[in-house]
């Protein structure tokens, strides 16, 4: 027996179908937009964790060598001597950044070879402006 739907019900179903198709169209558009980025071929992502330990638990001490620069008429910090480094830090890489309260002024560093070591600043800092130093040892 043929099932006859009322015209009103048929119109309602057509409207629902149109809404779904519109939604699918939008999805397709979004998918097309994402595909247009191109080059995103990798589909794997990994995350893991590992212990980060400190090679020196009691800190280090700094001493500065300041040299007069006759061109600028200012003293520049040209070498920073780091002392009190633990033996576990030997062989690792040390980085020093000299800074004021608002800006980085100079940096230097190198491989750690002993408990006390002088590091040449590859970018000398205006010695008078230095208010703090950041020392990082990694490796």
């Amino acid at each position, binding site marked *: 027996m043929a099932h006859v739907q009322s015209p009103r019900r048929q119109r309602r179903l057509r409207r629902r*179908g149109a809404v779904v198709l519109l939604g699918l169209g939008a999805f397709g558009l979004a998918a097309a937009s994402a595909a247009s980025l191109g080059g995103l071929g990798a589909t794997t992502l990994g*995350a893991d964790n590992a212990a980060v330990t400190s090679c020196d638990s009691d800190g280090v001490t700094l001493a500065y060598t300041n040299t007069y620069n006759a061109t600028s008429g200012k*003293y520049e910090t040209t070498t920073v001597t780091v002392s009190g480094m633990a033996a*576990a830090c030997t062989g690792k890489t040390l980085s020093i950044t000299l800074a004021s309260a608002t800006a980085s002024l100079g940096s230097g560093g190198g491989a750690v070879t002993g408990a006390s070591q002088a590091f040449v600043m590859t970018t000398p800092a205006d010695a*008078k402006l230095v208010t703090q130093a950041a020392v990082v040892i990694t490796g």
Partner: protein
Amino acid sequence: MRAHRMLGIVIAAALTATVTTGSVAGAAPLGPQTSRTLGAWIIPGGTGAPNVLTWSSFTGPNNTNLAGKALNGGGTWIAQFGTWKLSSKNTANSSNTALSNLTTAVGTVSAAVESTTLDFGGNPRAGLVALSNGTSFLYAVYTKTAGGTVQLYKYVSGVSTLLASTTGVGLPIVAPMRLDATTNTIRVWWDGTARLSYTLTASEVTLLKSAGHDRFGIIADGDASTNFDDFHVDQ
């Protein structure tokens, strides 16, 4: 009924597409990382560098008379007894005049003066001036006698009095000299080494550390051959 079936197919297709799209962001483990060590510190504090009160690199046209000329770091040159000019080598040198000196006021009696001296083959007797008011001052000079000699004098009422001396300091052609009057103990460095130390007497402090004795500079005592460069006064 047909419309219902079509609607169901469309929704199922959309869900499948969504699930497929979602699998793109699925994570996969990369494996274990190696353990790392790290030390990081923020250390507050300054470098202890002196504050440069004024300075001069002695650059300019050859034979420029320096009297009344401005320094790079502020202030003006005051020539006493002799004439001071720029050389073609961008240095300063004096006429051959006894106690010829070139100073600048820095506004304090607690400062140190430093300059590089260049011996161009003469018989040097040249150095630095501190705590001058034009009529009395301290000065340190280097000579070649006795393997190199550094002497500290005070000049008061037209008379120079030797306060301290040392010999055997070497005969470098180019060397920095520093005369430190930041405290009542006056110290002299020559060629990077502390050579002399002299503590002012109470009367000398009263005379030389009083207001107006704020001029620091260079001196060439009957010496027209020594040249000066890289002048600065620090505090």
